[in-house]
């Protein structure tokens, strides 16, 4: 087909930030997939709970301490995480490097406490359906923390290389921070489910 030139796009930036970035939208789409997954496991929890004559089944409710500690760590981690996202937006490489190292360390903390959280459930996955669903909820969320931590570690290494100083990398840092916010946000209903619904 013949063509006629009507528009010059030469002035456009070579990479878009935020909503102009395709990876931002991709991250959002994956969050929607995983958020649906979390919502469904919670639905399964509520479904099984509605069938049971006593809930939890043949076991006391989980100990509050480790789970609450994880909740506090995750909520506190939002402050450096949001700061890091701002620094990335300002494209301040020095601060982003500090922030990435900080978030790499903070990301391991909930995992350490979580080692104590599984025994605190006081039920095994193969004891009964209650045990199966709380282990699944906690396991699924732990997988998300591990995944984001690995991503954070790789990205932290990357910002210290020659590839660090680029809007693309700052965008990656922002997306990674957004994903951590998601990991924290999804924990709250799961925390309420595992620790407080079992006490109703």
């Amino acid at each position, binding site marked *: 087909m013949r063509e*006629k*030139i009507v*528009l*010059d796009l030469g002035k456009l930036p070579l990479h878009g930030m935020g909503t102009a970035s*395709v990876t931002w939208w991709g991250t959002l*789409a994956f969050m929607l997939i995983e958020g649906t997954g979390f919502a*469904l496991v919670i639905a399964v929890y509520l*479904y099984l709970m509605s069938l049971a004559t006593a809930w939890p089944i043949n076991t006391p409710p989980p100990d509050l301490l480790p789970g609450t500690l994880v909740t506090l760590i995750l909520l506190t981690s939002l402050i450096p995480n949001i700061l890091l996202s701002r620094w990335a937006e300002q494209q301040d490489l020095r601060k982003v490097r500090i922030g990435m190292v900080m978030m790499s360390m903070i990301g391991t903390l909930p995992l350490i406490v979580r080692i104590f959280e599984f025994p605190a459930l006081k039920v095994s*996955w193969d004891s009964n359906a209650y045990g199966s669903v709380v282990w699944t909820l906690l396991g699924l969320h732990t997988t998300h923390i591990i995944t984001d931590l690995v991503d954070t570690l790789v990205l932290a290494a990357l910002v210290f290389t020659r590839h660090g100083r680029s809007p693309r990398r700052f965008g990656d840092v922002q997306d990674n921070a957004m994903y951590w916010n998601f990991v924290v946000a999804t924990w709250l209903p799961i925390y309420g489910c595992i620790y407080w619904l079992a006490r109703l």
Partner: protein
Amino acid sequence: MKPSAAAPEQRDIDVERAQLTDALAETWKTPSGLWGALATVDHKIIGRRYIFTAFVFLALGGVLAALMRIQLAQPEARLLGPDRYNQIFTMHGANMMFLFAVPVMEAVAVYLAPLMVGTRNIAFPRLNAFSYWIYLAGGALLWIAFALDMGPDVGWFAYVPLSGPQYGTGKRADIWAQMITFTEISALAVAVELVVTIFKQRAPGMTLDRIPVFVWAMLVTSFLVIMAMPAIVLASTSLILDRLVGTHFYNPAEGGDVLLWQHLFWFFGHPEVYIIFLPAVGMVSTMIEPFARRPAFGYLGLVMALIATGILAFGLWVHHMFVAGLPRLGDSFFTASSMAIAIPAGIQIFCWLATLWDGRPVFKSPLLFIIGFIITFVIGGLTGVMVASVPFDTQVHDTYFVVAHFHYVLIGGAVFPLLGAVHYWFPKLTGRMMSEALGQWSFWLIFVGFNATFFPMHILGLEGMPRRIYTYQPDLPWHGLNLFVSVSAVILTAGFLLFFINVMRSARFGEIALDNPWDAPTLEWATTSPPPSYNFAMIPVVGSLHPVWDDRDGLPVADGLRTDRRELIVTTLATAEPQAREASPQNSIWPLWAAIATTIMLIWSIFSPWAVVWGSIPAAVALIGWFWPKGTPEDES
């Protein structure tokens, strides 16, 4: 945001046309040879592979159907024993739903959607390559297991307790469950790519109301995939956990529940029907325009019907469970919502009829398949309204009436449009036309063969013939109709054979196709047949819903893009105003390594839970290799 000073950048405006296409071809090329084929991220090559593979699975599933029809042609036949028959009907259903119907629709969109929105590659092209390898591995897993007499035998929906640890011994049910994981990973990956491509990579000026209906259909479908498929991933994973590590999700003795499986499965399973159906109606709305010689009637109504169907899709699942003993009020609600789906379906049918009524129809093979679709789908839709009613459903549940109904909606509603689409887009895919004479012959054989095969099944169902039986006794009144159905299936098979012959013959010897052989209005016809690796030498600028019809004096395009790196345009979501000249990733072998690592992990995890721990390490390594910047011009920003 300035380009790096080291690389002297090359723009399309600085060079002559011949040099421009040479430079773009060099930048976007897929090198020849095995390595190039394995590492390519070109959406057209991957889309073609996807479509080809899906049709291979269609043919294999067809062979299974033929075996079942031979077995059922007479009472007490001895061709297949009960165990083999169980595997065959399970394989047929699982294969057709998970390895053919869903992937083929997404595959067509992988090929076409980037062309139709006027961009140069799909969003996340490496994820696209990965998704194909994962899909291939999942299909191979299922069929190799079947060849080893390990094929699943629990029905395509694998109800517990039959598929649970107590009754489903061996690894057959695990093969089913893990095949699900493979196909869902690939389907979810493609859904994300399509959503982002359609949201952010539309050509400048392609506002929401200028998006072709097929692209709208794929957008809605992708959201259905994103919202529905996690349910089946959860279902299949929890089933494997019950079978492997002794969880009790589906064990009533320990507080679990078998109906939980049906809820999870059908919360996915009903939207699944629309995941297959919506792309097909999108194809119809798009194909009907060049053959009716006028724009489709009621664009807004067509798009709204797609969205309405997508939303209603999540409120229907319990109609698969009417005989499971759920509360009456729930049954009534789901009857009402199931009948409501007839409204958006009806709107679309009336829009197509109006389009043909007011147009000057050209009865080429794609239009024949469209008309065949309308007739068949209306019949399937009417029996759908019938089975939405609880008393009627209770009577025909698990009989051949249901088999007839869903083949009418799935073959009539999705395969007919798909075959029309193959005839229609074949020139764009291959650069050659399909034979019109063979196309017409295959249409009539398939149309007549299909109705003669599946219509009598309604009657068999009303006469009480249950589904999934491997044989029946001579004193039951089903013999005559079963023989008729099996003979009719020969006609249907002949039609499909002719279709495949037409495809293979035309791919080699077909008439060379023009860029726009049907005089169609959408952007994929504005480039060559088949398109070059970069799709468009200059990105189109869109001013209407039918850019190729409305700009016959010359397609408006934009310049200013670089030719020395893979560059495409990111635009705003609603109004498609240009935002950035974004880089598109180069070819890479890492998606293949990642797919191999994932495959090993998933298959291993059928046998040991530790596979998830150890298997994730190579997968993580492959992902790091995939994302680590290689210092190419695409990394600049």
